């Protein structure tokens, strides 16, 4: 059953990715409409498969790389659907949906094992921590996608190239607003995630902060986005500088997610 949902999700995300890429080349309201429907279908299948897995395993599927990647992908698509509903930014899909697809495919290629959950993970603080962390990562992914689009659009405006992609990309103002919303949603989520993580750490290991690599890098991410948000609110940082910083932030997120294992192993 989980497999069925999973393959359905991969198939639908694949179709949606192709459709979103096609949207860059072709303009057609019908295509845009069906592309969004494909993705919503994929998201529904993905959500059902995750719920099904959670019910079967009796825990949230966030405990290893495979489960986390799939959840990361789910969160990205969810966040994108939210922004697409609000701002009608089909082109953003062309940038982030392929990323979600890649993550999902990577997650299935990793080895899955059925196992007993280690006691260290059997804490509510851990679930809160993981859930919120992925929610914030999803917003940062969207922010990075928007930042890439912003830089492309800015390049077109500065070099006076007004091609088809220029027409497709949303206005600088819209992208700026989405980016700001991602920050104001992602950063508080990350803050709570880090706090709940440290509480979990205290419960599980007896210390709030153990300076392991994952914790340290999470803190670096927190500082990057805090700086971005601070600069935005106080000085009005936006445009190119903010875009570059969002991309750097996202690279660090990816690096932390893939490269940094907790020093504690389970």
């Amino acid at each position, binding site marked *: 059953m989980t497999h069925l949902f999973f393959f359905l999700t991969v198939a639908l995300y694949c179709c949606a990715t192709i459709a979103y890429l096609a949207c860059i080349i072709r*303009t057609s309201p019908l295509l845009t409409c069906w592309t969004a429907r494909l993705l919503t279908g994929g998201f529904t299948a993905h959500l059902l498969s995750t719920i099904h897995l959670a019910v079967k395993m009796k825990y949230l599927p966030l405990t290893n790389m495979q489960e986390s990647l799939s959840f990361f992908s789910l969160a990205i698509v969810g966040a994108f659907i939210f922004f697409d509903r609000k701002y009608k930014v089909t082109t953003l899909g062309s940038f982030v949906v392929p990323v979600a697809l890649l993550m999902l495919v990577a997650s299935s290629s990793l080895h899955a094992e059925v196992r007993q959950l280690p006691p260290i993970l059997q804490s509510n603080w851990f679930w809160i921590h993981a859930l919120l962390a992925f929610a914030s990562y999803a917003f940062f992914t969207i922010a990075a996608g928007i930042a890439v689009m912003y830089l492309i*659009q800015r390049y077109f*405006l*500065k070099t*006076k190239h*007004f091609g088809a992609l*220029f*027409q497709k*990309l*949303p*206005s*600088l*103002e*819209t992208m700026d*607003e989405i980016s700001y919303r991602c920050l104001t949603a992602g950063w508080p989520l990350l803050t709570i995630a880090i706090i709940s993580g440290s509480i979990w750490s205290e419960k599980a290991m007896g210390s709030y902060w153990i300076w392991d690599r994952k914790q340290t890098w999470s803190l670096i991410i927190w500082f990057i986005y805090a700086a971005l948000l601070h600069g935005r609110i106080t*000085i*009005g*940082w*936006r*445009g*190119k*500088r903010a875009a570059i910083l969002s991309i750097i932030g996202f690279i660090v997120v990816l690096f932390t997610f893939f490269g940094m294992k907790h020093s504690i192993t389970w």
Partner: protein
Amino acid sequence: MNIIVVGLSHKTATVEIREKVAFSPNQIEKPLTALINLDGIIEGVIVSTCNRVEIYATTRDIAGGTARIKRFMAEYHHLPFETIEPHLYSFHAEAAIRHVFRVASSLDSMVVGEPQILGQIKTSYGYAAEFKSSGIILNRFLHKAFSVAKRVRTETKIASSAVSVAFAAVELAKKILGDLSDKTIMLIGAGEMCELAAKHFLNSGAKGVMVTNRTFERAVRLAEEFGGEAVPFESFLDHLHRADIVLSSTGAPHCIIGPKDAEEIVRKRRFNPIFFIDIAVPRDIDPKVDDVENAYLFTVDHLQEIVQANLAQRNLEAAKAEEIIEQEIGQFHKWLSTLEVTPTIVALRNRFDEIRRAEIDKTVSGWKDLPPEAEKRLESLTIAIMNKLLHTPTSVLKQAGQGGRVDLYIDAIRQLFELESLQRNDEELELEE
């Protein structure tokens, strides 16, 4: 029944001629009534815009009808026929259908793809419908033209891009500033292009205008016109940060806004983007302003480039539109040709005969020892009934054929007896609007 088109447009006549033959919408009833009272003209619609004056009519006599309408256009405006005759064009049959479809789809417009013409034809048709000068054929014909225009609009990108410098500026501003409804414009200097662009920005929802000019009175006058605020030229830089869109066209011999100013302004704006348009020659705004982050500078040449590219795109799209029109002409022409007396009578007879044969076959096949004599009698009996039944409608139809509104009868008969399955879905859709 034939559709004819007589008229003149920007392609055949100068504005001096066009304005002489224009029909005022305030008193359109008079010419419409006069038009359908012309000998041999059955229905008529008058389309009169600043770029074209055209009459669509139906008649049985193409040559006579066309000539009479041409005369009518001159006589109605008390003009000597010779002055307008060389500018007039006329079409009939397929060419007339094609012409009206192309006009409605804005393929014949001065700026291909401009959206006004469809509305203008709709209004003209509204008058004709109100004063009952259009009948079944022109009603169907114009609704078809509207649906063709809609198809062209949705299936091609003919009207999707700006083709004037002012519009290009608005489109570009939207790409930078998004929604223009809370944005402010600053006009530096005066000039036709600047004012036109400002009007376009205000029409697109821009909130406020600031005007500055070397002669302050002029700034005040212009500000009043736009409902904006006049700013002294000496201190306009101090107000520039309040503007999101800056339109500049002074006669200054050197640049009046440099990169240092732009940097300062952007900082004051808390790095909100600002959009400069420099229309002046020599330039008012230093090209280096474009290097300032969050400042975007465009000159008239850039806007012109966009317009040229859009025009080229439109012409490509126009080819697609012509294809759509060709398809639709075929369909409409088919319907039109069914509105003739003889084919209708034939179709009606065939229909009756079909039913008669079917019933006879049913009866005969179930009747085992039917003598051949009886079968013959049965045959002639049913034929006699059929002929009697058809006699009156046929003669009424033939008589009506000599007079005016035969198409009403024909259309009714065709619908009552389902003589042709007509494609009317698209027309009905259009009627609902």
